[in-house]
Structure formats: structure tokens, C-alpha cells
């Protein structure tokens, strides 16, 4: 992340020195979520200088959007958050005549995203992924036996299994709207239910495994998995793959796996959108169109190991990535993915309150 910030600083300096006409594009995106040369290429092609900031939670982005006047031209909320923010009037409709590269997008995935943004009026998929399980192959084998096959939520949701892993560190995402539905799904309930009794059942199950969980956090597990400080983490697909890459880079002997459990997992889309008060919507459209270029998207996927929704880029994505069922799930696995539900204020409050109870016992 620091590298990226330095890069964008260097970029903006270079751009201001060479360009007479100065346009700035302010982007707010997830941390560790772009290729090293994407912004450089964009500036080279369009002459627009980029200021690039990062966040690691939808909640932080949402607070900024709801306050207004964030100064950002492009933000990348996750699908269910996007839906609520559209309802709050945060985003402007896209001018599709400025986005010829929309033709590159995968129709089926864009249709999936249209569940949150009818007609894809406001946003385009940046990357998508699943919420599954990242694990340290050796540490898990050591504790559960060499023959244990990691393919189920049992690894974290079965109280006896997870208790055996507690000593090497198990972490959950600090995201109630992802973890409680996952537990509901494990219990055989509909993960998309908004029934508070179902939330309570999911939370009650999480309380049974609570003592085996070391922490709840949505980004720390990347480093901890890579360093061997944690052996099992419920996490976002690409983040676990980044932990894998970091461990390889460090050559520390840590081998990490990612699995979409056979019971199913949450599928989410991170969507590029333009706030209504964006200072530079024209440049923002240029950027969205630039990202939808087959080569540019392929470069990002090759770097961050998240699946993209760009059909034209597929031949340009590394075979190693396209063939990994953790990134591009098999058709059968796809059947069992579910999309996030948008909750009303009452359900939001209930699920956050239950989550606090799971975490603190109060």
C-alpha cells in the first residue's frame, strides 16, 4: 500500500511537471487492490493525474459517502453497500456513451450485479470474489492429521475441529453481515434470510466457537497468514491469495491454501461508481473505461489474484489463476454461492448487536 501511495505521489509530481493542462482524478479504492503500473499507464494515456487513497472497510467508505463532499471521483463499494448508497442518492448514473469498453464485460456477471444496481445504471464491476477460508496447510495437517481434507465450513464452524486449531490462531472477518449469514448457511438456514430469529441462531452458533477465535479483523489476517502467526482465517479470496504470494516472496516455508467450502460461500462484487458530487466526472468515466480495457483488467487480476468480470480479458489472465477453483469457481461451486442481502435499519441493528455479543459476550 505504501508502495502505491509513493507511486501515486511520484506520478502526480511527474504529471504536474510535464503537463500544461492539469486534470486530477481522485480515486478511493480498497487497499492492495490494483496492479503496480495501472495508474502510471492511465496517466500516460490520458494525461490525467491520479491521487489514490485506500480503505479496508465498506463502513469507512460509506461514512464518507453519506457525509458528502468527499472529493473522490471514483469509489469502489461492495455490491450490497452500493445498493443502499444508491438509495441514499450517493451516486450519479453512468453515461454509457462514454464507456465503449462495456462490451468487454461478462454479461452473466453484470446481470448478477444488476440485482444490486438495476440495469447497471450506476456502477461497473471492478473485481469480484468469495468469502471463504484461508489456511496454513502444514499447521492444519499437523493438528487434524495428514488425511484431513479442507473442503468444508467444519474447519471453523465445528466446535471440536476449531478447538484443535485454536492454539495456532483462528480469525474471522470483522464483518457481521458476512459472518452471521455464513453461520446460518452452515446450520442449513437460508443465508439471505432477514429474519431476526435466523440471525440469532447463527450468532448462537458462533458463540459456541467463540473461545477458539483469536481475533476478528478484516485485513490483518493477510500478514498473519503469510507470517505463520495465524493458521486459519475466514477471508476474502484475493486477500488470501495475496498472503500466499507474500509467503512465497518471503520464502519462509509457509504454504497457504484457499477453499470455497462445499456448503457454499458469499459471492460479492466490488463496483466502481461515481459520487454525485465528484469534482471530475468526465475523468472518472475515462478511468472506468480504461479499467475495462482487456489488458488493463488482466494485469490487475494477474497482480491481485481477484477474479474480474471482463470476458475479453480472460485469455490474457495467467493460466495459474483462471484454473484455480478458489478464484474462478467451478460451475457446481458457483451454484452454491449466494449474494449478500441488503438489510433495513432494524435488521442492521439486530445483526450488529448480535455480533457485539458474539465478540464480547455482552
Amino acid at each position, binding site marked *: 500500500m505504501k508502495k502505491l501511495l509513493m507511486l501515486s505521489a511520484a506520478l502526480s509530481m511527474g504529471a504536474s511537471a510535464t503537463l500544461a493542462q492539469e486534470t486530477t482524478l481522485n480515486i478511493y479504492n480498497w487497499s492492495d487492490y490494483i496492479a503496480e503500473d495501472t495508474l502510471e499507464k492511465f496517466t500516460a494515456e490520458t494525461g490525467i493525474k491520479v491521487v489514490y487513497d485506500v480503505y479496508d*472497510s465498506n463502513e469507512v467508505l460509506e*461514512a464518507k459517502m453519506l457525509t*458528502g463532499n468527499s472529493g473522490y471521483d471514483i469509489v469502489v463499494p461492495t455490491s450490497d453497500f452500493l445498493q443502499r448508497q444508491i*438509495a441514499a442518492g450517493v451516486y450519479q448514473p453512468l453515461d454509457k456513451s462514454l464507456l465503449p469498453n462495456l462490451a468487454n464485460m461478462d454479461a452473466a456477471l453484470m446481470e448478477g450485479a444488476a440485482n444490486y444496481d438495476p440495469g447497471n445504471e450506476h456502477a461497473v464491476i471492478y473485481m469480484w470474489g468469495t468469502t471463504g477460508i484461508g489456511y496454513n496447510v502444514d499447521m492444519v495437517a499437523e493438528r487434524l492429521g495428514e488425511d484431513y481434507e479442507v473442503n468444508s465450513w467444519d474447519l471453523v464452524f465445528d466446535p471440536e475441529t476449531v478447538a484443535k486449531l485454536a492454539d495456532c490462531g483462528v480469525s474471522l472477518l470483522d464483518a457481521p453481515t458476512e459472518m452471521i449469514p455464513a453461520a446460518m448457511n452452515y446450520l442449513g438456514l437460508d443465508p439471505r434470510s432477514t429474519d431476526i430469529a435466523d440471525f440469532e441462531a447463527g450468532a448462537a452458533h458462533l458463540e459456541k466457537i467463540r473461545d477458539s477465535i483469536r481475533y476478528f479483523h478484516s485485513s490483518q489476517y493477510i500478514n498473519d497468514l503469510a507470517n505463520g502467526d495465524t493458521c486459519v482465517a475466514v477471508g476474502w479470496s484475493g486477500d488470501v491469495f495475496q498472503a500466499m504470494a507474500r509467503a512465497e516472496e518471503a520464502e519462509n516455508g509457509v504454504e497457504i491454501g484457499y477453499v470455497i467450502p462445499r456448503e457454499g460461500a458469499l459471492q460479492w462484487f466490488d463496483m466502481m461508481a461515481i459520487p454525485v458530487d465528484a469534482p471530475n466526472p468526465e475523468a472518472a468515466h475515462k478511468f472506468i473505461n480504461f479499467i475495462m480495457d482487456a489488458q488493463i483488467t488482466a494485469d490487475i487480476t494477474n497482480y491481485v489474484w481477484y477474479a474480474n468480470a471482463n470476458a475479453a480479458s480472460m485469455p490474457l489472465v495467467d493460466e495459474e489463476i483462471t484454473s484455480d477453483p478458489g478464484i474462478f469457481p467451478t460451475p457446481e461451486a458457483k451454484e452454491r454461492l449466494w449474494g449478500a442481502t441488503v438489510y433495513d435499519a432494524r435488521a442492521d*441493528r439486530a445483526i450488529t448487536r448480535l455480533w457485539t455479543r458474539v*465478540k464480547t459476550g455482552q
Partner: protein
Amino acid sequence: MSGQAKLSEKLPEKSIGRLPFAAPLGGALARLGLGPRALVIAIPTVWLLVFFLIPFVVVAKISLSEVAIARPPYLPLWEWQDGILSLSLNFGNYLFLASDPLYYSAFLESLTIAGFSTLFALLIGYPMAYMIARAPGGMRNILLMLVILPFWSSFLLRVYAWIGILKTNGVINHALMSIGLIDEPIVMMQTDFAVYVGIVYTYLPFMILPLYANLVKLDETLLEAASDLGAGSFTTFLTVTLPLSLPGIFAGSLLVFIPAVGEFVIPALLGGPDTLMIGKVLWNEFFSNRDWPVASAVAIAMLFVLVIPVMLLQKAQQSDGGHS
């Protein structure tokens, strides 16, 4: 270099050594009937108005509103409709805080953690301040400098450094394991212990500095008198030094206690998930529930929980000052 030279060229020579525009400003204030004393008082008053009172009123206003899917995410308090001003105040947010024991226990835990942290900071800071105040002149400045030195690096970096020190694969565990004192690493991160370490470490200078300022002024002839009258060094400390340093203890304790109660960053980075402090509850209300009105109500309630002990302490300090 050239930049500096240019800067000094720009400044008119007569302004060196005093504030530019001081004379005309003073004249203008005098015409308004405000003397230099009023000016001195006006600056902190304006400061408090702009940076305390106005934000407080804004937060109080939001706390009486109702949550909505909008931007910003709450309903306006008043509306003009057909020339009629309709005002809707919603006290439900405060009632809601009382209805769920979560808020009460989070307040209590915050106060407990802040209280113990203040005590630890006092126990560690007092001897340090005492030693610095008793150190010979040149040494004293170096020691004071060392107390302030950590402020030159970012607060966040220093807390992150503690992660590196305390974590399972961290410095302490490595050291203890390599000398064979322990076989298994001790889990220190994500515990209350780590939160205490972080808070005491971060706020220790705020305890030491007021204590030092107080102890350095201590009249040594009083100590000599006590010893002439037969008091041992411990009795002298208990009956002379300690009572005289009470104002320093109060000042230092307040400076540690108040920010520690509302602390969010340290428990978020070092604490475990069961460390339930009010800062985290506030975060949840604001970010996870998007319920700005309830979040504001928590903030206002927190202010009152803090104001009462502060006022009590100040009263105690004042009455103490009256005795001596």
C-alpha cells in the same frame, strides 16, 4: 537556502521581533472597548467556541434526530412546511441507550481500563518525575528531552511497534524462548494486558510532565526542616513531598484518564475482541449501524460521564489548594 533568503526579504524589517499588525489590531480592539486583557481572554474563548461548543451543539442536534437512508443519514430536526416551522425532537436515542446493558457495561469497562491505566501511569511516572526533578541541571534537561522524544515519531507507528514487540512471533517471545525461560510463546497481543501496555506507554509523558513541573518547584528547605525534626526519609516523603505534589498528581491523572476513556485506536490495534470500550461501541453505531443519531447520543452521554468525575476532581483539588 534561497527560499529562506526570499522569505526574510519579504518581511518588513520593523516587524521582526514582534507580531506584524499587532499595533493596528490593538488599536482597533481599544476602540471597541477591549483592552489587552480582553484580547488575552478572547483568544481561548473563540477557540472553545469554534472547536468545542459548535461541534458539541451539532452532535447534540444529531442525537435528537432519527435515522434515515439519506445523505446525511438522518432526518432534519426542523422543516418549513407552508410557512409553518415544525420541530421534531426525538429523545428515543437516549432511552435506547438505557434499555440495552451494552452501553452501560462499555462505559464501565472504559472507566475501569482508564482508571487502572491512570494508576499504573502514576506509579511509574511519579518516581520518574521525582528522579528528573532531583537530577543535576544538565542531566535534567537530557532526561526531560528523553520523555518528550517519542512525540517526534507518529503515535500510530509507536503503537504498531508494540505489535511487533508483543506478538506471538515477536521480540519478547523470541528473547524469552531463546534464553530458555519459556517453551511456548506467551499470547500477549489481543489481550487486555496489551491494551494497558499501550495506554500507559502512550500517556506516560502526560503524567510525568505535570508531576515534574510540580516536584521541581518543591522547596528543599521544607525537607531539611522535616529531617531536622527527626522525620526519616520515608516519613518526609509521605508527610511533605506527597501532599505538596497533589496538584501535580491531579493534573497528570486527568491528562491520562480523560483521553484513555475515549481511546479507540489502542484497543482496536492491541486489544482482543472482548475488550469492549465505549470508543468501539461508538464506532459500531456510526459505521456498522449507520445510526448517527444513536452514535451522537453515545458521545453526549460519554461527555457527561466524563464531566462529572472531572468536576469532582477539580473541586477536590481546589479545596485542597485552600487548605495549604
